[in-house]
Structure formats: C-alpha cells, structure tokens
C-alpha cells in the first residue's frame, strides 16, 4: 500500500517537475518530495523486516502490462532489504540535491529525472514477473542515461552516454534472453511460476551465464565495466552517488534474485567462475582507481572494485550451497549483502564529498586541489570517514564486511574439489591485494585533495557547502560508524533476509552480542564494540600520560623539510608521483605504462616535460576489436546498398531457390 502510493508519488513528482520547470523553487521542492517518498519506502522495508516473522509476503496483481498477463508485484525480505539499501542513499541524495542542484548549469535537465530514476530502481525491487522487472530495469537505465547526458554540451559526457546506452542495451538483451530461458516452453513469466519450474541442466547454465552478463554489465564486472568510469562521473554528483552507490546494487539484486531464488540449480563451477571474475574485477578496478587523477573517476573505479568483492562472496555462496555447506553459504551471502549495504553508504558519502569539492573549486583533477581540509572542515572530516570506511579500517563498517568476506573465503577450501582448493587461495591473493590497494588509493585521493598546500587559487578560496549538503554528508558518516560498531545487530538482521534463500539461518553470535564469531566460537572473532571501547580507554590513557609527564608547549613555524623548504606548491607530491612506485611495478605490464622525460639541453631555458602513457588493455584489445569487427561487417553489408537492379533481381531469385530447396528437403 505504502509502496504503491510511493511509486505513484514518484511518477507524479516527475510530471510536476516538467510542468513547473519555470519555477525557481521547483528543484528544491521536487528533491524534498524525493526525500519524503524514499523515507516512506525505507520505513516500509524496515517495518516489513521487523515483522517478517509472521511469514506474510504481501503480493499484488495489477491489471496492466502484457495483454495475456497482468503485472505482479511482491515484497519479500530480500526486496525489503534492498528497499532500505536503495532508499537511504536516495533520501540523502535528495537532501544533497536541494543545495547542489543550483550549482548545475542546467538544473531542469536533472530535477524531473531524479524521481523517475528512483521509480525505475524501486520498480525492479518489487517486480514479481519478468515483464515488470525488465520494464522497470529499462526505466532505470534510460532515466540514468538521460541524467548522464544532462551536461550535453560536454563532449566527454556525450561519449560516456553513448557507451552507456550500448552497454545498457546489451545488458537488458542478455536479461531478456535469460528470462526467456527461465520461462521455458510454457512461457511462464511470473516469478512464482518460474520458481515452481526452475530451469535445469544446460538451460540453467545458460541462464546463469546470461544473468552474469546482464546484471554484470550494469554492476560493472570486468570486462563489462568500461562504461561505468565514464558514465558515473559524467552525471551531477548526487546522481553519480545514486548510480555508483545504488544502481549497481539494483544490478546485484537482479543477480541474487536469479541465482539464489529463481534459478537455484547453479553448480559450484559457476560459483567458481564468479569468484574468479570478482577477484579480477576487484584488483583491476582498484588498480585503475590508483592510476586515475580525476576525483570522481577514482570513486567510480573503486565502485568496480567493491562490486568485485561482493561478487567474490556471492560466488563463494553459490559454491558452498552446491556442496551442501549451507552454514557457510549463509555466511558468504550475509557478507555479500553486508558489503553492498556498506558500499551504498560510503560510496554515496564520497561522491557527495567529491561534489562539494567540485562545486567549491570548480576542479576535479587531484593535481589542482590540495589543502582543502582547513578550508572545508565538514566536507574534509566526512570524506576522511568515508575514505577510512572504504579502506576497511576498524572500527568502521567497511572492515566488518571485508572481515566476513575473508572469513568465508578462508573456509572456501572446505569444498573438497581441487579447483576450489587451488582457486580459492588465488582469489584470496586478489582480494587481499584489492584491500591493500584500496587503502593506498584512498590515502592518495584524500591526501592529495584535502591535505598539503593548495595547488591552485581556486583551491585556496574553497569553502564548505550549504548546511543541507553538509547534513547529507554527516548522516552517512555517522551510519558508517554505527554499522561498524554494532556489527552483530546488522548481521543478525541480514541473516533473517538470507534465511528464505538458503533455508539455513546463520548461527547467532555464540559469544554474546558484541562479538562477531560467525562460524564457531573458536574459529575467529571480532568485536568492534570492544575494540572501540578499549581504543577510547587507551586514547584517554595516552593523552593523560603524555600531558602529565610531558610538556604541552607548542609552536607554529615554517615547515622544516630537512632545511631546504620549497615554497612552490607544485613541488609537493602529486597524484601521479604518489602512485609512481606501484605504477612502475604493476602498470608497465598491465597497462603498458610508459614514462618519458624530455630534459632541455644545457643552457636552454625551456621546461622539462614528463609524459605518461597508459593503455587500458580491455578497452584497446577487447572493445576496439569488437568495434573493428562490427565496422568490417557493416562495410560488407554496405556493398549490398549499391547494386544494379539486375543484381538485386538475381539475389531475390537465388534466395527463392534456396528457400524452395530447404522446404523440399524438409518435406522429403
């Protein structure tokens, strides 16, 4: 009921925004409306999860859609969980948008699409038949495509939008085929029917493959990730937050829905494949992020990394389930859901921070920023908390979910098959590398942007954004802390979401509520609450001891820098110099990185130049060869366009002969 009116309200808001586009206040009003609706949806999801014990699954069938089928909607615990994951950042984006939208060159290109984008995403979650699912999915894709295109005067945004449109069409096409296979010969398109007759054998394998392609292209799995770092940064920052923090989660929802609910006959091989793909995605994503200079592109690539981590956990869950290790499957699935919940929060927070930096300075290149921590204190602290959370530092939330993923990964070899036994450690290496690189990446992103001395005048005069935007950053920062410090409460909640899918409940905390010990009492435990409390106690002790036995005197002075301080701000470490050691070691093979230094001749006063060239192997080798192949085929087809009438008639004749021969062959 609430959902229905919320969805109608979103549509109405979209229409209102178009109708009232001349009004100045309309942008604030529409965004405020989005907040109200999103909060209502969060409330609905939460109240469903709280009362989920009754076992009532509300479902409704509405008389529209395909002529022979009405539209089915349903809210089960998985949908309810995702409603919360999606609408909390959506409400924050609405709050952020109230202040932010006036910084945009063309706000009337953004405001009407916000509620429509939310409409599409929420529609995917409550869909209960393939038709509604795909329509909502396309709604989401097209709304976000238009949002990417909102800055249509920018050539880069146009390129991003066209790549995105192709990838989105490809993804939907794959999902369409997947649902077609699941529907089977009977053509049952509602999910209840699909659940009753799940695909098996080769069809199931094809469904999993197509779902991985379809949902994976939206979520950003390597090698289908290429559009993501182009399109996410091109949109306005609060939309980037929604696309990166939320839309990728809708894609993962689709994957989970298909793999764990609609088509559960997934062999461990597919889990293994997902693990490997996830591992490669995580490492490549974060490595790209380490090499990028644009703040928002860094965040987009880091989304690729986090999606990889979630997919590793999902793959593990599928493999465990196939081998009957239901407890471990539940653990891996809880880890995956926990991580995507966390990622939706801290990635939104980081994009909000990036948006604040961009609107304050007009720059998004790391090398033209610097020293913002003193000038934008609120943004700085929130971005720091987000960076710590995404780098998986305790006691914040990112660490809890990565800890759970590591715990389930370390139990991967329980599956007694040689491929898992040798594959899981390799995936472990990739996951560990990704975790360590992420910390480097965010030391770099935060340190170069916010610390040091300002590198340009626009960074020197930056100021904190208006109060609504500050609030929109402070709230998720607090939530990151809460989700990190009380992990057992969250994991118990998620366990109840996972239970209907795996049919096993994750055992409750064996050591009491502050201790996260998911497998058994002896296999390893983590207590964020205790770590936090002891940390506070030790901090107080340290401060007391230092201040009691030491002097509190302090003096400000010019930086020492070993006696030869450099006044030029560009002498500081830049983004490229920070990542240089890792680039030398890895990128020379991975990205064919080449550094060339041109020194002027002695006596010449021309500047020395440093050039860096890197090639994205997936874009160059995979996509460019596809483009070449398509061009080649188009060239061949092109020849058919300029034939003489005689040749066309001849072609028709031979076609007719061929068809007749086929018919004759079949009849005999």
């Amino acid at each position, binding site marked *: 009921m609430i959902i229905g009116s919320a969805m109608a309200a979103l549509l109405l808001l979209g229409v209102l925004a178009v109708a009232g586009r001349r009004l100045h206040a309309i942008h604030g009003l529409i965004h405020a409306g989005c907040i109200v609706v999103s909060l209502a949806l969060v409330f609905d999801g939460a109240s469903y999860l709280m009362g989920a014990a009754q076992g009532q699954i509300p479902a409704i069938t509405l008389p529209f859609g395909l002529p022979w089928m009405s539209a089915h909607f349903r809210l089960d615990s998985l949908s309810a969980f995702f409603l919360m994951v999606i609408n909390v950042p959506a409400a924050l984006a609405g709050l952020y948008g109230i202040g932010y939208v006036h910084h945009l060159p063309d706000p009337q290109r953004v405001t009407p699409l916000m509620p429509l984008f939310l409409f599409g995403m929420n529609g995917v979650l409550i869909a209960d038949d393939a038709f509604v699912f795909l329509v909502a999915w396309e709604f989401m894709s097209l709304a976000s495509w238009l949002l990417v295109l909102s800055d249509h005067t920018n050539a880069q945004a146009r390129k991003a939008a066209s790549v995105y449109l192709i990838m989105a069409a490809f993804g939907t096409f794959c999902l369409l085929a997947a649902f077609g296979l699941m529907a089977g010969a009977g053509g049952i398109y509602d999910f209840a029917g699909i659940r009753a007759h799940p695909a098996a054998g080769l069809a199931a394998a094809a469904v999993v493959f197509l779902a991985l392609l379809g949902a994976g292209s939206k979520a950003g799995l390597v090698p289908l990730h290429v559009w993501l770092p182009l399109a996410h940064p091109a949109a306005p920052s609060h939309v980037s937050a929604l696309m990166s923090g939320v839309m990728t989660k809708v894609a993962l929802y689709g994957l989970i829905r298909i793999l764990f609910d609609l088509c559960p006959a997934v062999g461990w091989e597919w889990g293994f494949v997902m693990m490997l793909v996830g591992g490669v995605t995580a490492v490549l994503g974060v490595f790209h992020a380490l090499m990028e200079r644009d703040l928002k592109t860094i965040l987009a690539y880091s989304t690729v990394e986090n999606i990889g981590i979630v997919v590793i956990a999902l793959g593990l869950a599928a493999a465990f389930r196939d081998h009957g290790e239901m407890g471990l499957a539940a653990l891996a699935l809880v880890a995956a859901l926990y991580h995507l919940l966390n990622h939706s929060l801290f990635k939104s927070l980081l994009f909000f921070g990036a948006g604040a930096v961009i609107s304050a300075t007009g720059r998004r290149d790391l090398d033209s920023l610097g020293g913002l921590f003193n000038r934008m204190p609120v943004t700085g602290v929130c971005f720091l908390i987000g960076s710590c959370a995404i780098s998986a530092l305790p006691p914040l939330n990112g660490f809890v979910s990565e800890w759970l993923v590591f715990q389930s990964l370390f139990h991967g070899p329980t599956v007694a098959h040689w491929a898992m036994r040798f594959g899981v450690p390799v995936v472990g290496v990739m996951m560990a590398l990704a975790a360590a690189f992420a910390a480097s990446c965010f030391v770099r992103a935060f340190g170069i942007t916010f610390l040091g001395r300002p590198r340009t005048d626009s960074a020197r005069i930056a100021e904190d954004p208006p109060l609504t935007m500050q609030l929109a950053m402070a709230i998720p920062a607090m939530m990151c802390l809460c989700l990190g410090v009380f992990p057992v409460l969250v994991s118990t909640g998620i366990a109840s979401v996972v239970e209907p899918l795996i049919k096993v409940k994750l055992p409750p905390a064996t050591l009491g509520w502050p201790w996260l010990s998911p497998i058994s009492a002896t*296999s390893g435990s983590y207590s964020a609450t205790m770590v936090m409390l002891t940390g506070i106690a030790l901090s107080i002790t340290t401060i007391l001891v230092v201040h009691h036995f*030491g002097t509190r005197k302090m003096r400000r002075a010019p930086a020492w820098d070993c006696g030869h301080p450099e006044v030029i701000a560009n*002498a500081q470490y830049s983004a490229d110099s920070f990542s240089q050691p890792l680039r030398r070691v890895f990128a020379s093979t991975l990205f064919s990185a080449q550094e060339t230094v041109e020194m002027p001749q002695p006596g010449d006063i021309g500047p020395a130049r440093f050039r860096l060239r890197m090639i994205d192997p997936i874009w160059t080798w995979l996509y460019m060869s596809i483009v070449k192949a398509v061009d080649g085929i188009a060239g061949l087809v092109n020849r058919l366009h300029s034939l003489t009438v005689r040749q066309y008639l001849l072609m028709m004749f031979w076609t007719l002969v061929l068809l007749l021969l086929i018919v004759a062959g079949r009849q005999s």
Partner: protein
Amino acid sequence: MIPLLWGILHTWLVVGFAPFAVGLVRLTKARLQGRRGASPLQPYRDLWRLLQKESVIADSATWLFRVSPYLVFVAVWLAATILPTVTTEMVMTPAADLIALVALLGVARFFTALAGLDVGTPFGGLGASREMFIASLAEPAMLMVIFSLSVLAHTTSPAHLVAFVLSGHVGLEVSVGLALGALLMVAIAENGRIPIDNPTTHLELTMVHEAMILEYSGRHLALMEAAAMVRLLLFLSMIICVFFPWGIALPGSGPLWVLVGLGAWTLKIAVLAIGLGLFETMIAKMRIFRIADFLGGALLLALLAIIFLYVSEAV
C-alpha cells in the same frame, strides 16, 4: 576477573617492554659494528627527553597532523594489547583475530601516511607514497600467511592458534616453514628494517618511514617513535605466538604458569631481537624497486604454504 587483571597488566607490559627490545637490537648492531653502543635503556631516555621538548608544528599543518600521532600510537598499542604474549587468558583476546590485527596496523599506517602528506613537503609525500607501496604488497602477504594458518588450524584467532599448536596436532610441515618465512619477510617490511628501509638512515632520499615523520617533534615525535617500537615488539610477539608458542599459559593454568610464560616470552623476544640485529648487520639495504621482488616472494611463499597443505594431504 582474572582475564581482566591479566589484560590490564599485559597492556602495560607491551608498552613498557617495547623500548627495551629496540634498545637490544641497537646494542647488538653496535657491538657487531665494533662500537660500544648505548645501553638498552637508551630508548626510554630518548622518549622521556622528547616528551619534555616543545612541539614545533608547520604553518601549513592541519589538526589531523596533531591528532595522527595519538591515533597511530593507540592503534598499534591496541593491537599489541590484544595479541596474547604470556597468557591467552585475557579479556581482550577474542576482540580481534589476526585479520583484525592486520587492519589495526593498517589504521596506524593510514594515518601515518596522511600525516606525511599533511604538511605539503616533498619528503613527506615521498615517504607516504613509498610506505603505501610497501604496505600494498606486505599486507596481502600477511593475509595469505593468516589464510594458510587458518586452513591448518581452522581458526584465525591467535589464542586458539596457540592452543592448537600446543596441543601437538601440528608436526613439522613444509607449509609452516614457508608461512614462517613469509611472515618474517613481512615483519621486516612492516617495521621498516634493513633491507627494506633503514631506521637509522641520515639520507633523506633513502627514507621511507622516517620521511613521513620528518616534520614531527616533541611529544608527537615521541608518540610516533613509541608506536614504531611497540609495532616491532608486536611483530616479534606475533611470530612467537603463532610459530613458537611454547611457554604461553593457557586459560585456567594459574599465575605460576603466567610467570613462566613471561620468562619464556622475554627470553624469546631477546633471542629474536638479537637475531634481527645480526641479520641487519649482515645485509645491505635494497633499491626501492627491488622491494617488489622481495615482498612478491613473500606473497608467493604464503600462497605455496596453502597449496602445499593440499599437496601433502593428497600424497
């Protein structure tokens, strides 16, 4: 009640003993280099003297620069508090397993690197960049060592690992040797010892850890130095705890055994510290880009440790 008592005593034990261990390493090196060397108590005097000095802070530094030493020290101290050294019967021991200990050290590193970038000097950035580079390779190697231990003992908790090893389930295994090798290499890298980094260098361009804390003085420097000392002790304790736990008191064994554990631990730390001094004297520092080979080797050793477990199982 008793776990709480041991926990609090242990908290002070690690922070009180850490400077001595560092002093012992320095003394060993001095003797091997033909110098008399300062007494092993010298690090205590250094810290005390630094505490009495006023702190000079660069104009361009933010408040993060002043807070970081406290955060770094507390994170390392917390990790050292949690890791069992003389007894596993401590209130804090289940609060973090080995993965969480690695992450706590990650907190310390994260804020040290940010502090290095904060003032905006070239040397600070250089240190931060190189530190994160080394950590990006050392941390995965460390996690893979934990992976191999977890496969062997079905636990990542240090206390249960100690119990597992002491119960005699584990014989001499190739995997354990490989994991030990990898952990030793990681410990060298994480503590900035030769051949990765030189804690006593006077040449800025070869600095890693020292370059990041170049701008610190007074009590802030004291905290950063103390954090480095506790970190060294923590890694030595971790090697002892996981690979040579004999002597560590198990829960319910009484105060006498804890005393025995204390003696055994002190002895083992002294042996390792002297061993570290010996090793550092014998070897030369490597070029920064050779570090990737060194730590990549550690990562592969740890990976091999896991794979050999299955190979030995299959044979």
